[in-house]
């Protein structure tokens, strides 16, 4: 039997709260694909949303604390499934590399010396590392009834010179992954448009407007489900649909899934197992498939 | 300041076509760099003999820059490739001899890179400043002259010896 691939895991705050189902589905899918997680012990805030605009150094130090813990734990790489965490971690690493004085300061604050160059991965990079062929090998069900709009949001692929991962304006890596499940992907316009992000609480009006634009665009291009890889995007796109329904009476609900949930379905897990029932907009693959067949 | 401050002596061996012209451009663009560096112009970086470097160290240089055209951009097609190989080897030799890394630096500065010339020269000067005076040769010299003191010549004698040399 081949050795189990061990990957460092930095959950981030959302995974333990609003995006619990993301955490559940991610762990299940990774386990199913024959890999296992080594969670970074005593992980802390990544410095997202407010820290890095309030205090640059604090934000870098916060993010790098987690990298330091990973290093001390003997990890070579770790995955940050939340796009914001991923962005904060790689950006801080980039800052340190580019500006020796930042490195010096962060190291003195954390009382450590960084030896290794830990590779921080986003969700898509994680599956690339595990091996795309594993997904095809372990696939139990072809999700043929799905027309998926892959939504990257703002942080997964940007800034391009830091993430060095996909085209910042026309990314295609998530599509490749989604197509492995047998689902079809749609070519649409709002892949990297803003969902309103951290305004979720303070300016719901903005978030509702922007998120609705994105969902409308996905619908217009023939999608019946959207896939995201960021808890913040999911909150805005899924949860805020209740308000959309209230404000726009003719508004029709649109399911938004995490990429891991979609993979989970293809690997033969059911909705409840994956935590899809925790979403605001309900989704059941078989119902959707049946509905589609009748139309 | 009462105490006289030590300033490093930097010699730059530069090729006529790229770095010398690049340095000209730095001047034309009125960019600024430290006064420590003095340029010695040769036709090609391929023509810089390692002995020049040793000689310069011997004569009190604290840092040396060797700079030519970018690879593939040599006025003489291949001179800088010979230079690159030579310096690769010579650098190792200096390290082996215990001369700190950074005393001798190499770069490629093209005729259009006035700004780069300034950056390179400033970097070398700062690096050498941080390293302090280059003493290895000086100590040897002091030891030697202590044993065999040089005769003190007056000016007239100097001129005469100069002319004898001719």
């Amino acid at each position, binding site marked *: 039997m081949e050795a189990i691939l061990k990957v460092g895991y930095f959950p981030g705050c959302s995974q333990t709260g609003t995006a619990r189902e993301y955490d559940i589905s991610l762990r299940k899918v990774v386990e199913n694909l024959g890999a296992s997680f080594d969670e970074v012990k005593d992980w802390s805030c990544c410095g997202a949303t407010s820290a890095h605009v309030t205090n640059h150094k604090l934000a870098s130090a916060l993010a790098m604390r987690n990298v330091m813990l990973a290093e001390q734990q003997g990890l070579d790489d770790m995955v940050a499934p939340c796009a914001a965490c991923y962005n904060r971690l790689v950006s801080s690493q980039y800052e340190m590399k580019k500006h020796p004085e930042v490195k010096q300061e962060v190291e003195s604050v954390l009382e450590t010396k960084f030896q290794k160059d830990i590779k921080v991965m986003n969700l898509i990079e994680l599956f690339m590392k595990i091996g795309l062929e594993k997904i095809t090998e372990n696939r139990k069900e072809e999700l043929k009834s799905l027309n998926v709009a892959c939504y990257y949001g703002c942080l997964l692929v940007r800034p*391009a010179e830091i993430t*060095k991962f996909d*085209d*910042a*304006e*026309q990314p295609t890596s998530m599509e490749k992954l989604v197509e492995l499940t047998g689902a079809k992907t749609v070519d649409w*316009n*709002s892949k990297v448009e803003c969902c309103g992000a951290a305004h979720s609480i303070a300016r719901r009006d903005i978030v509702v407007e922007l998120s609705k634009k994105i969902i409308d665009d996905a619908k217009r291009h023939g999608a019946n489900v959207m896939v995201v890889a960021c808890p913040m995007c999911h909150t805005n796109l899924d949860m805020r649909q209740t308000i959309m329904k209230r404000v726009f009476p003719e508004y029709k609900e649109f399911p938004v899934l995490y990429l891991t949930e979609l993979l989970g379905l293809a690997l033969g897990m059911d909705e409840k197992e994956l935590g899809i029932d925790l979403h605001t907009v309900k989704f059941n693959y078989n119902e959707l498939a049946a509905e589609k067949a009748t139309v | 300041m009462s105490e006289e401050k030590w300033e490093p*002596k930097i*010699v730059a061996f530069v090729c006529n*076509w*790229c770095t010398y*012209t690049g*340095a*000209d451009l*730095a*001047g*034309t663009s*009125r*960019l*600024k*760099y430290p*006064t420590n560096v*003095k*340029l*010695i*112009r040769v*036709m*090609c970086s*391929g*023509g*810089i*003999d*390692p*002995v*020049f470097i040793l*000689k*310069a160290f011997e*004569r*009190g*240089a604290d840092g040396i820059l060797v700079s030519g055209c970018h690879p*593939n*951009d040599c*006025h*003489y*097609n*291949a*001179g800088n490739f*010979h*230079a690159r190989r*030579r310096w690769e080897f010579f650098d190792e030799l200096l390290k082996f001899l215990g001369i700190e890394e950074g005393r001798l630096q190499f770069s490629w500065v*093209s*005729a*259009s890179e006035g700004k780069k010339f*300034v950056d390179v020269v400033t970097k070398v000067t700062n690096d050498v400043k941080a390293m302090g005076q280059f003493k290895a040769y000086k100590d040897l010299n002091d030891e030697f002259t202590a044993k065999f003191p040089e005769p003190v010549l007056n*000016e007239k004698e*100097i*001129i005469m010896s*100069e002319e004898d040399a*001719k």
Partner: protein
Amino acid sequence: MKIGVFICHCGENIGRTVDCPRVAKACEWLPGVEVSIDYKYMCSDPGQNMIKKEIIDKKLDAIVVGSCSPHMHEKTFRKAAVAAGINPFLVEITNLREHCSWVHDDIEAATEKAIEMVRMSVEKVKRDQPLTTIEVPVTKRTLVIGGGIAGIQAALDVANAGYEVVLVEKEPSIGGHMSQLSETFPTLDCSQCILTPRMVEVYQHPKIKLMTFSEVEKVDGFIGNFTVTIRNKARHIDEDKCTGCGLCITKCPIRKKAYNSFEENLAHRPAVYVPFPQAVPNIPVIDETVCTHYKNGKCGICVTVCGREAINFDQQDKLVTEEVGAIIMATGYKLYNIDKKPDDSIYKGYGEYGYGKYKDVVDGLQFERIASASGPTEGEFKRPSDGKEPKKIVFIQCVGSRDESKGFSYCSKICCMYTAKHAMLYKHKVHDGEAYVFYMDIRSGGKMYDEFVRRAIEEDGVKYIRGRVSKITEEDGKYIVKGEDTLAGMPITIEADMVVLATAMIAQPDASTLAQTVGIPYDKHGFFNEAHPKLRPIESTTGGVFLAGACQSPKDIPESVAMASAAAAKAMVLFGSDKLEREPVVAKVSADLCAGCFLCKKVCPYGAVEVREVKTRDGVVIKEIAYVNEGLCQGCGTCTASCPSKSVELAGFNNEEIFAQIAAL
């Protein structure tokens, strides 16, 4: 030895930061210095006369001039020295301006440095040897690389003066980008109508040897004496037999496999083709990559229809050697393809504009073809996706240009003008159409240029919006252009039928390779470097190689033509005399010291080192030594550094001279 030191103030240029009188005073005491004086302008007539007078009066043997870069006035002072009777190579220039006064602020430190610099030169000049210049013959032929408008103009000018020209073009026809243009600004002249007569003139000129579908592979030699190897690529059609009837083209069954690059990929072409109907020479080329014959040996319809038996599938590339005295580079430009770029490219793509994804987002040259009467739409404005007439076009300027984040820092110079022209051409044909132009600044310097842009705005009603476009998306056949109107201070969205991107002009992708072949420097964008940005814009730093057109930097047609004529004039200056004087900076081997290891022979880039036998009177060979051929040696000195016994020395830069400079530090 008596040395004179002359320190120039260069007005304020040196005098402001270097205390010139103090430098002159300090140098008086240097051993060997007879006289040391400073003067306001050494290069002026009185300044030179002063030098001459001092040389004669004080019986000086050598002089040191502390002035500007030797690249500026070395010649001037050498001439003055010669006039006063001393060898020109006993003149040393200390670069007090570019390397001292201009780059330092601190007067005290700069003056100290200046004194040291002069001291180094004084020590060097003491060891300098009198030298005589070397004379070399001149081959009075010119090679022009590139057959666009610049190359055509340069070739015609040189040939009309009575000198032979070899014109090399890598495409099957000459004409370049200008032949693709519809109409030209600011007169709206038909581009092909004014270009094709010149193309024909080149073809028929008895002094011009035209080599199309050819590329320069190797350049040896030096100014006045270049040997050039040219690869004449196989057309698979016998050039002597072909009459250009075009039967093979019309009968070729491969119609849709290859894109027509002349039509900027907006149309297809057969496997055997001429780039465009007015091609010169009008001889087709068979594209091996798509031709059925090269896949399976079948087909051969062209062979059957050709009455002249001109088709030759077995034709091979030919290597041709040409001897020339001057080379004119006229390789032109490329438009930046803003498609997705590989990660290692220094240029980044513009994913947000969807070029390559949306068919109706085109670049400037594609729009030229759409607007051209001879183009794929025969001059009617039809968009590529569905052939409908666009009723609303958005033009975006500076796509790439002036965008450091995408790898370009420069302005492409012509886009403001051609965008105005595009919008105007469109409005002239589609009267109810709307044209919007997003711009950063309008740069329309040139005779009648700004008037042209004003005409587009005022008479033709083109709507100019100052601002950038952030994104283009497609919805139901419409292109949603989201941008910002910075003058109104608000975002703006335009639903367009078509978008035209004025993408940056970049150097030809193989420009740097060619520059290395020819031996000329280029900048980080791949444009060839001129010898001096102000006063020698036509010459490269390599003697005998001149630049014309957009290969040096983005240029429009009149500028390219002017530069081409200037380059031709420069080449003819070279041909004005039968012999060229060359600096005697060459290597010399000391026959006594040389042990015959021939390391120098191995490292010499020019093959200038020869083996020579030393014989006794009876003809018995005692040893083999190296000998440097003065004609071939270019004076790099690589041999001197590699010689273990230091028996080869570079005249003017020998070890003794350099050591003296080091010692004077």
